[in-house]
């Protein structure tokens, strides 16, 4: 059974050649194409591979933050969640994506007026799974 597995690992990715086209002014010369370096999307999106998980968004509670159902979210557990960041949290046994507010009170805000804010009840610590650092969406062409 051959199963193709995608993995977050440096060193096993496609390098996209970046062509630098340098035409010097005044001296018409054939543009010299040469490969400067590769662009690595993992490098660009993932600072801490060991602490980064991918999750899939469902529902429309974050629609005004530009997060649509089916989007792929890159979640980093190693960074401290700050006020205003979009996080993944565990609420009532579910993993949910919301914007974290620390002031004036700690609460999770949806980016859609149809959803109420989630305020952790007295004495309950809010369980943050990680901070959403990137959003990946495939456009259907």
């Amino acid at each position: 059974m051959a199963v193709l597995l995608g993995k977050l690992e440096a060193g096993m990715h496609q390098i996209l050649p970046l062509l630098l086209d340098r035409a010097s002014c005044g001296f018409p010369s054939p543009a010299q194409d040469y490969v400067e370096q590769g662009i690595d999307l993992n490098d660009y999106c993932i600072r801490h591979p060991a602490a980064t998980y991918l999750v899939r968004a469902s529902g429309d509670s974050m629609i005004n933050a530009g997060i649509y159902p089916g989007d792929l979210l890159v979640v980093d557990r190693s960074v401290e969640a700050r006020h205003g960041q979009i996080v993944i949290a565990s609420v009532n046994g579910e993993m949910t994506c919301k914007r974290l507010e620390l002031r004036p009170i700690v609460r999770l805000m949806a980016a859609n007026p149809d959803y109420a804010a989630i305020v952790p009840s007295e004495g309950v610590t809010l369980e943050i799974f990680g901070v959403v650092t990137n959003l990946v969406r495939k456009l259907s062409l």
Partner: protein
Amino acid sequence: MKPVFALVDCNNFYASCERLFRPDLHGRPIVVLSNNDGCVVARSAEAKLLGIKMGVPYFKIKDEYQAMGGVVFSSNYALYADISSRVMQVLEMLSPKVEVYSIDEAFIDVSGIQSLTPLSVFGAELQSTVARWVGINVGVGIAPTKTLAKLANYAAKRWPATGGVVDLTNPVRQKKLLQLVPVEEVWGIGRRLAKQLNAMGIHTAWQLAQANSKVIRRQFSVVVERTVCELNGESCLGLDEGLGPKQQLISSRSFGEKITELAPLCQAVSQYACRAAEKLRLQHSYCRLVQVFVRTSPFAPNQPYYSNSALTVLNVPSNDSRELVQAAQQCLTQIWRPGYRYQKAGVMLTDFWPAGTYQASLFDEVSPKPRSKQLMAAMDKINRSGKGRIFLAAEGIQTDWKMKREYLSPAYTTRISDLPKVT
């Protein structure tokens, strides 16, 4: 500089992996089953509290366990291996020398750390970083030898008041702990050895540490003698040194559905031979004996029972999958009998030789396949890359005799179609 080792191990590792993306399972008992959903191989803390025993066949506890609200999972190795590699990466980030000892344990050389920070503080740092980065809780045992680090870790797990971190560098504390620990809990002392030691009046780790090492060496082996030295704080095993490479490798499975035809049985045996060959290459050994066994279920009512095994000796030790599969298939043709419903088969490799040590006789037909080494290395590299699998046609493509995995969770971290959903 005196060596100091830390042993880090993940708490209830498989159960913790299963819970990572399932906050709804918080506080609920979880068990993970062996291949084919046979026996319990891992238990969450809650399942332990219910009295679920390690190794118990699941069908025996199923009804009662589910009535108590217990949750069950088939082994999801894609998930466990990925989470394991993350834990190891974090440990490597925090400490210079790491020996990955098993899927959920690593030894770390922490010699000299003391001059920078107290060892218990460093241990707590390891613990909190792994928890935050990966989401898995670990226990840490720190001591001057690997054997004592193992015991320190045992104490960290056994007594919650330790917070999961035990610094056992102090000889007074070592003595106190060794007196409390039964001898079978010592690294490398199995149940069988413990019985023999008990017969000599050695019941605790402390009594073993006090034993005369010369006598121990005569009675048992140099390995047990080393254990005695290690218990006394004398480091004999460095990183990547343990109990040596294995001297036999077994790959065997029960089938999800009984097999009655030769072709699928042959595929299964070929696959086990390949898996064993992979492990053999991983420890850079070559084997000479290939053994295959098959059997029907001893418990099936009104079905004839049949069990048999056969052995092939290779002319020259090999670790080439193709040669080992060929040998395994020869064995199988000898023991295959039609008319039975086979439930289990396995391949055992023994008589290991390190590379280049086997003296072929003048009349041996030595014709190792050309460039065998390079081909196998390429195969292993592809198969370890996580991008897919390359296998011998003999292993079969449609393996419907494959394992029963009724309670398998998604491959959350390794398959794009299985990513956790967030609302």
